[in-house]
């Protein structure tokens, strides 16, 4: 019993460390600039300045940034879940000439630093006429070596007996993928989904280079623009940081359920 208390103690200390910067962000976002720059520090704002948030909305087109970011995130995530799981299945379960070579080639992409491909890609997207469109933001992000590798690792962990049995039952490859592998790899798919959503939502360098106009501007670029304007006005900066985080927070609360059901699904083994 007291062992449980020890676990709780450790977890609580950790949780405090994880959460404090976040709380401080919210608290600062509600202070005036003068109060933020006060010694000694005040923990809670003397006056709760909700106006700071209105100031952010007044300075930048937040709603448009939200919409753009949402579209890009959805497009990339759906694309990756479908395309990467198909490829991962082939690499984990199927036999074909050149498999190892192709897999190593795919893996090598994982190691390509983002910065190295930026300039040539700008040329490619220009020649496709995609610069400053949602194509540029979404399509290249639908292919992920990371996703293939992650799902392959998960698929390898699924007992082979399951699909061998299915093969004997006369199931096709796509059938095995669809009926055996995918249902058994839900945690992996959820993990890839979370990573892709987060990576897309937080992506910075790519949208910065590939888009110019307000019509295609993503949240991260918009927030950075805001920071360029208010270099050290911490309350306003923190307000913009909170605003950029809230949608992910909501998504996360929703996803918690999926995670839990994923666990439950694993528990009930057939």
């Amino acid at each position, binding site marked *: 019993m007291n062992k449980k208390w020890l676990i709780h103690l450790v977890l609580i200390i950790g949780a405090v460390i994880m959460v404090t910067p976040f709380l401080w962000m919210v608290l600062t976002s509600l202070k005036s600039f003068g109060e933020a720059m006060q010694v000694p520090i005040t923990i809670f704002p003397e006056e709760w300045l909700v106006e700071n948030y209105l100031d952010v909305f007044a300075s930048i087109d937040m709603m448009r940034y939200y919409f753009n970011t949402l579209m890009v995130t959805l497009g990339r995530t759906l694309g990756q879940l479908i395309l990467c799981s198909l490829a991962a299945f082939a690499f984990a379960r199927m036999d074909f000439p050149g498999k190892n070579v192709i897999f190593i080639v795919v893996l090598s992409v994982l190691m390509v630093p983002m910065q190295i491909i930026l300039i*040539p890609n700008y040329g*490619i997207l220009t020649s496709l006429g995609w610069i400053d469109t949602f194509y540029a933001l979404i399509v290249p992000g639908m292919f992920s070596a990371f996703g293939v590798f992650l799902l392959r690792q998960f698929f390898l962990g699924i007992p082979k007996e399951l699909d061998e049995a299915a093969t004997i039952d006369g199931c096709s490859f796509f059938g095995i993928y669809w009926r055996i592998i995918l249902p058994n790899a839900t945690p992996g798919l959820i993990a890839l989904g979370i990573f892709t959503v987060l990576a897309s939502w937080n992506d910075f360098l790519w949208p910065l280079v590939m888009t110019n106009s307000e019509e295609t501007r993503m949240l991260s670029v918009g927030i950075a623009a805001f920071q360029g304007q208010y270099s050290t006005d911490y309350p306003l900066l923190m307000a913009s940081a909170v605003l950029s985080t809230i949608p992910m927070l909501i998504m996360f609360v929703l996803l918690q359920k999926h995670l839990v059901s994923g666990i439950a699904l694993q528990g009930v083994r057939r």
Partner: protein
Amino acid sequence: MSDSNVLMKPKRSRRKRKEAMWAYLFIAPVVIGLFLFYLMPALASFGLSFTSWNGINPPEFIGLDNLIRLVQTDSFIRSMVNTLVFTLVSVPLAVMLATGIAILLNQKIKGMIVYRTLYFLPVVTMPVAVGMVWKWLYNTDYGLLNYILGLLHLPQPAWLFNPNIALISVIVVYVWMTVGNNIILILAGLQGISETYYEAAEMDGASKLKQLFTITIPLLTPTLFFVFITGIISSLQVFDLIFIMIGDSHVLLEPLRTLVYGVYESGFEYSQMGYASAQAFLLFLMILLITIFQFAFQKKWVHYDG
């Protein structure tokens, strides 16, 4: 299947051909996409690293001049050392912490969902925002961290301004930021471990601690392997965080300069695309060597299948 009485050999090869066809179909979209948007540009950049390209005039072949210039540049050597230190400290730290927390979270304790949500908070925060918040926490005069240290009568360092601790300060932020990422992966891995193993061990009378080392950790190694591989690769490429925390003051840059920052600086601030490509190429080489090393050693510690 209707063709059950066909001879064995042709059937097998036909099935093999069919399998290969389906496999190519499955991998085609990803492979084409990766080739077009990742591999081809990477190869183009590789070629550029032997040129003096400035983004405007046609690239001029200058052989190994860029590499020779690099190894003679102090700031490049420093960026190399910083990158290695950053990775070798932050990744093992983040993985160890994440494994511990994930194992604790995986126990059937009350409030597990609450804890998990809290630990994931930094993961859902945009790196741009993380950089801004920590820069503010680290503020020497008005930051929360130094305020707390002051209350405890401890020294209040200039976190980002003292060249001796600046890198450590950023490593702390990076660990804080990535530990939740690792927890997601490791938790998913833990959940993949069948209860039956523990039930069997329980019947054999194995202690919880023994179960941890004989069941949990070994069965977790494929996941840990994955976490290490991807963790190291992304830590070698860390950029956003350092970029935001430096802001526009170049004086903070030197102790925090990493390889990727050098690529960005040479390529995008000074328009020396060739020189930048050479740095990117060395970074790529470093990532490649470390990854090959890890794969070579995976048989020593990674277990597939129960």
